[in-house]
């Protein structure tokens, strides 16, 4: 067999490919790393001209907040451990779990448990212990670091309300989108009719529409929906403006074309013989779907679900226009910091809020990274 030998690569190629990858990783992570650093500094440091000032934060340190060497070592170690748990142990745990419920649910519970555990350990347990250790050893901080902006964001500005709203909208969108989408995707994959084809093409064109066109049309209708719906629903007609449910419906619809295309190509990769056999045994289409297809469709559904999640979580245009303050989600709330008659402190708080928004996404990718790849590999994307 000449295979392995010929597949082995010359050193030059390996070095080139390795350094390209290193360069790309630097490029990918740097901007995010940088805003994370900024969010922990006093405003003067955060916008300082000298990069070392931003990293070391002399003004912040002068303010009495900072990390000692021990803090840094222990913090990094705990972070590393957490990443290991998330990437390696967690998927295994989910995989062993008994088949008493569907994988999506299991994943949700596992991720939530991990997130809560991490927050408790990292923000609840570590600081007092480390403070005690530092106090005992009499160490001086080497890097300026302050969490006042996070406190301002989460406690004073009640950012957790936005977090809860984001959660409601996101969970709603993912659930509805997948429920409606799997049904449609399955039918479209199994039907070879002209109609199915044209539905797909039209969905494709809908996918291409500029959103600002659609969104502007919603506002007057949503604000006046009580009056518009009154003939149908009578006295109880709701004002849709400001209702998370209405926003969920809009986001699901906007994302529906992508969802049905993804799921359709995924269902195409499940052999049709499988459900045909079930139909021969006397199942209806729906029964075949429920008992034969559903058990094998999860990899594709999870991957598609992640894309829906990203759309709903990151949406700005729809949520900013159609939600009022009490139901505001995180992304539009953040923009509020920038566009208030802004002070520099506001800006750093906005950066802190931005980092807070990114944290759950971090977690998500950390946990689901393998599922994304394996889901796509399994055939959610076949062109």
């Amino acid at each position, binding site marked *: 067999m000449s295979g392995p030998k010929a597949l082995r690569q010359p050193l030059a190629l390996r070095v080139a490919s390795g350094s390209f990858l290193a360069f790309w*990783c630097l490029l990918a992570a740097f901007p995010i790393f*940088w805003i994370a650093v900024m969010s922990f500094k006093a405003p003067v440091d955060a916008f300082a001209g000298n990069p070392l000032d931003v990293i070391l934060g002399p003004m912040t340190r002068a303010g009495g907040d900072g990390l000692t060497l021990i803090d840094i070592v222990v913090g990094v170690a705990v972070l590393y451990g957490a990443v290991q748990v998330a990437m390696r142990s967690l998927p295994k745990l989910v995989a062993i779990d008994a088949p008493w419920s569907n994988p999506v649910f299991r994943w949700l519970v596992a991720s939530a448990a991990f997130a809560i555990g991490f927050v408790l350990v990292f923000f609840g347990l570590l600081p007092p212990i480390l403070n005690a250790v530092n106090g005992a050893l009499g160490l001086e901080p080497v890097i300026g670091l302050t969490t006042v902006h996070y406190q301002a964001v989460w406690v004073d500005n009640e950012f957790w309300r936005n977090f809860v709203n984001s959660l409601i909208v996101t969970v709603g969108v993912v659930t509805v989108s997948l429920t409606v989408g799997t049904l*449609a995707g399955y039918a*479209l994959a199994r039907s070879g009719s002209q109609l199915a084809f044209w539905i797909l*093409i039209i969905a*494709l064109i809908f996918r291409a529409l500029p959103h600002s066109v659609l969104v502007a049309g919603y506002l007057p209708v949503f604000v006046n929906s009580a009056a518009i719906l009154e003939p149908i629903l009578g006295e109880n007609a709701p004002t849709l403006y400001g209702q998370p449910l209405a926003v969920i419906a*809009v986001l699901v*619809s906007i994302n529906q074309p992508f969802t049905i295309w993804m799921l359709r190509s995924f269902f195409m990769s499940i052999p049709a013989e499988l459900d045909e056999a079930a139909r021969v045994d006397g199942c209806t289409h729906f029964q075949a779907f429920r008992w034969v297809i559903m058990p094998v469709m999860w990899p594709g559904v999870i991957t598609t679900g992640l894309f829906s999640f990203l759309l709903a979580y990151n949406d700005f245009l729809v949520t900013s226009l159609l939600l009022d303050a009490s139901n505001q989600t995180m992304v539009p709330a953040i923009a509020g910091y920038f566009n208030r008659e802004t002070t520099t402190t506001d800006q750093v708080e906005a950066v802190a809020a931005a980092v807070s*928004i990114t944290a759950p996404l971090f977690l998500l990718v950390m946990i689901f990274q393998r599922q994304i790849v394996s889901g796509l*590999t399994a055939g959610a994307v076949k062109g």
Partner: protein
Amino acid sequence: MKFRTFAAFVGPSIFLMLLFIAAPLVSVFTQSFYLTQPVVEIVSEEVCTPGFLRQTCTTETRSQPVLDEDGRVVRETTFVGLQSYRNVLEPQRAWEAVSNFDIGGLLAIDFWKALRFTLTFTLITLPLVIGVGLAIALAVNNAAKMVRGPVIFVSLLPFIITPVIGALSIRWLFVGDGILTRALEWYLERDIAMFAQGWTIEILMLFYRVWHVAPFAFVIFYAGLQTVNTDTVEAAIIDGASRWQRLWYIIVPHLMPLIVFVALIHLMDAYRVFEEIVGFSSQAHVISLQWLTYDFLQPDDSGNRAVSRASASAMLTMIGIVILLIPLLRKTWRDHRGTR
């Protein structure tokens, strides 16, 4: 599958799309041919506004909409045919510029300026996204098993981060004396202002988009690489095919459907470019088609929106994307006919 079953399965999905996408679309289409205006009257009235200590009162002549008995604004809708399209396209001015070979003159018209940028943006980022995505996928596939996990994780970050925040994070690195602008200044030993001229902003926007989307292409291609048939590769090696030949004749054709898929998604998204304009506040130098529509729709302080022009520009944007998609749609059509 019987039609009734089919309808039951697709029904909810179709209903949502009809209600929230098709219906607004139809209304936009109609609005682009009509003009809805309030009936206005010219009034002259005394307006008193505060100074710091005492008021100043002035008599102002201004137009004001007429209200009916219920206190609602009286509006008139007239059919104007293609007038709104003419207002957006300014065909006469555009034609004059074209016949004088005056590109600058053509690009002084907002629509053509936006079209120019949108097209260059789409067409430049497309190969870059596919190329960079493929390169990362190959490099990751090449890397030791140990590092793959973390590398995939880091690579996905630019894709998952909220677009508005991603754009801002890059902007902060460059705006004014941002950290990277200083680095560049130090390296090139000259003063640099990244936001002072159009082309540097355009480069930043291109960079941001490639940075943001390449991970998506990467993860799709990487998934595709996992299913490359090793037998074929080994056969090729026995036949003495070089590394490049293997890449070009086996791997790329294998990934072709995925490349088409990524190209399709990217074409649609890049053509809608919008966040970049806002995130990098580039409207002084470059604007995009979706931004143009958005701008028409933004009410000014006195509440005016250019709804008809917005509808027209939206329809023109849509026509553009359909034209761009035609080659891909034709391919889908042929595949569809073939598989049936």
